[in-house]
């Protein structure tokens, strides 16, 4: 189990050639990742997902807060790191390797490395073993690193934008391979993606970070049910936002088209319906949200997208 408690990370642009400014990448993040789950990191660009992953894997030194992996600190701890494999969002660092060379490289570090798994998966994905990876396509490089990660047989596999560059067919195949391999041995998979449908499909749990702050975390089903869409209609006059707010509901988004009002409301469906029923209406319909919609509305409520538009 990974316990992240009150983690704050700042990048200080000081020292030689720096202007002394500070960028807060993560603000007081607290999350628990249980064993054996598939955990998705969601967030806008530059939200802090990769930073959190790097902290998890001991690439960055922790500044504030704690990260415990099975009760142990991760920074500078070889035994904890031997249970983790991190695949970042780039592949340029593997350009000089052949796949066989990559196997030998990681085999030097991971005592649990399985040649059997490696060769089996390489064969399954039809990857050439003795060709320089610089000649691989981006998707092939991704596949190569993922199979090395799986063959390392670690308890935790951390994938940053792992499916980036894969075509839909290969994406499905790699996803199947990962889930089969990881779930068979009860390992924990942590992955980040901009593709919310992918997270929705693969993960049991997820978190959403925006500008370094945790928006929500938990089981996907619960996240989906933490907000819902309500469509309301009143024949004589349109239902206003103020009327709805008076009932005590937490409105993320309000829009009106003719006499039909559509609101995105934070909270459980039953509770929302109970509160909204206080507003006189002719039709009231509750529509569950997809994870993607929750993601979009939560970020919109925080001004994401609007900022970019107003800047442009």
């Amino acid at each position, binding site marked *: 189990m990974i316990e992240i408690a009150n983690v704050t990370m700042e990048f200080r642009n000081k020292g030689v*050639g720096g202007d002394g400014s500070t960028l807060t990448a993560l603000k007081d993040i607290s999350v628990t990742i249980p064993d054996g789950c598939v955990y998705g990191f969601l967030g806008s660009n530059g939200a802090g997902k990769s930073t959190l992953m790097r902290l998890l894997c001991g690439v960055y030194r922790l500044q504030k807060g704690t990260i415990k992996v099975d009760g142990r600190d991760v920074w500078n701890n070889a035994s904890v*790191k031997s249970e983790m494999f*991190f695949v970042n969002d780039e592949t340029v660092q593997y350009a000089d390797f052949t796949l066989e060379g990559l196997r*030998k*490289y990681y085999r030097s*570090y991971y005592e649990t490395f399985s040649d059997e798994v490696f060769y089996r998966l390489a064969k399954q994905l039809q990857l050439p073993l003795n060709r320089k990876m610089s000649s691989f396509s981006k998707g092939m490089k991704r596949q190569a690193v993922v199979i090395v990660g799986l063959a390392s047989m670690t308890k935790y596999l951390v994938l940053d934008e792992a499916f980036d560059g894969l075509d839909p067919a290969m994406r499905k195949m790699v996803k199947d391979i990962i889930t089969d391999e990881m779930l068979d041995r009860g390992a924990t998979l942590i992955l980040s993606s901009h593709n919310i449908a992918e997270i929705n499909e693969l993960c049991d749990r997820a978190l959403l970070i925006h500008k370094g702050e945790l928006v929500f975390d938990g089981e996907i089903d619960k996240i989906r049910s933490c907000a819902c869409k309500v469509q309301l209609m009143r024949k004589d006059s349109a239902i206003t936002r103020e009327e709805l707010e008076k009932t005590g509901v937490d409105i993320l988004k309000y829009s009106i088209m003719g006499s039909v009002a559509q609101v995105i409301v934070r909270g459980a469906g039953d509770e929302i319906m109970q509160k909204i029923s206080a507003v006189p209406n002719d039709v009231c319909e509750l529509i569950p949200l997809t994870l993607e919609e929750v993601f979009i509305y939560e970020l919109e409520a925080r001004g994401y997208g609007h900022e970019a538009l107003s800047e442009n």
Partner: protein
Amino acid sequence: MKRFLRINRMALGETRTHTKFIVIVNILLGFGCLLLSLEKSYIDLLHADWMIFGYLLFAVGGIIGTMAVIGVFRDLNSIQYSDVQMSLPMSSAQRYFSKLLALFYLHIFPVLFWGGLTVVIKTIEKHNSEVYRFFWTTGDWDFFWYESVDWFRLYLCFAASVLFLDAVGVLCAVCCGRRAETGYFSYIAAYCLSVLPGLIWNRLLRTWGGQTMEAGHAFFVWTWSFWAKTYTDFPTYLLLINCGISIALMVLMYFVYRRRDAGTAGRPVSNRVFFEGVMFAAVLTMLSLNGSRYGILLTITGIAYLVIHIITFREQLSCRKIAVWLGKYAVTVLLVFLLNFAAYMTNGFGAVYYIPSESLDGAHVVVTTNRTTGSVVFYAGSGLAIYNERMEAYDGYVAPISMSDELKRDAIRIVQRHLAAQEKSFTDFFQRLGLIETEENWRHDLVTITVFQTKTGPDQEVMTQSLFLPYHEINAMAEELEDSGLVRAMEDLWYESYAHQFHR
């Protein structure tokens, strides 16, 4: 042992990722070995001095070690490599020492191997030569021993040079966060470390203390040994110390390395103390090169100083920033001048009082004056001989007085005190720095003390000290020496010579 095997496994894993470098360095060193070891045959065959190319290939083989350092420490240069290497199951100590071991396999071991092979081949070749066979049969073991030590010294020279460059490379890699900076800072730092001790001796101690003797070998104790090797009598033990310092530095840099995480990867320089230290050392080195070319040196150094600051700057450039850097450069130059001025005021930080530590028994001490008038310089003769037991062999003078070591030192101290007591002024400082040239330059006389070591022959000069002294000071000095009875034997000759000058 288990820990070492684990680190070794990691080091081999790292080494395997640098196959191109392994091939390149072994080609360079292999051919270097071939040219050096088969030098005699090549000369006979091709009538060319191929040995120099052998040395050159070994030198290049050593210099490219910086590439190996950059490759091995790539986790500090790029966030992508940091992601890979820092997430691997290693503590920072295991990671660092596995990298040092990988550096050994990649670069240090090939130099030691090819260097060792060269020495072995040369030794066998020499021992098979007719000259050697002659000494072998006559039992002149000293000759054999001398040659063996010489070759061992050459081997150590190879080892010391590669360790020095790699140690400086590691220092720069650990303090920089980008490949380019690690590369050029390595060469700047290696150059400064190699020449600066000698330059400091020359500029601060020799110039302002009046010492004209060469800097001791100890000044080149930690240096690129190909440089130090130009001193044919460079002691073997100093080469060993050179190797030891390099190894110690590489080990100690762990304490800086362990503080780094991926956050500083990609930053040109991650350690400000290192950056400012190298920049100051570079300015001090450049401004110590040649005092008479200060204008050119100030300009070239200033441009380089500015360019490095621009390259390492990570934000939007502005005129204000450039002005700040120029101001910083001005302050650095001022510090260098202040250092020189302090050396001037203290007569080379007390170097003016330097007397050879070894016994002066059997040595003779000569004090000479050179009178200068206008642009014409004429020699006034060896006016004052404090003690010259062997002067008859040296200058035709007879000096029958035997003087004790202590008395000779007293005599030298009197002269040195007079040298140190002369009036100081900014004009005099800038004149002697070569920045101002006026008629004042000719107002002083040159006083030289020379101590000749006579134990192995009168030509063995162990100390020479030259300083300018006002004319009246020479008189005072001569009187004091006379009053103390230290020049009694030569007084007639002295006065005759000196009076001759006065009456001209």
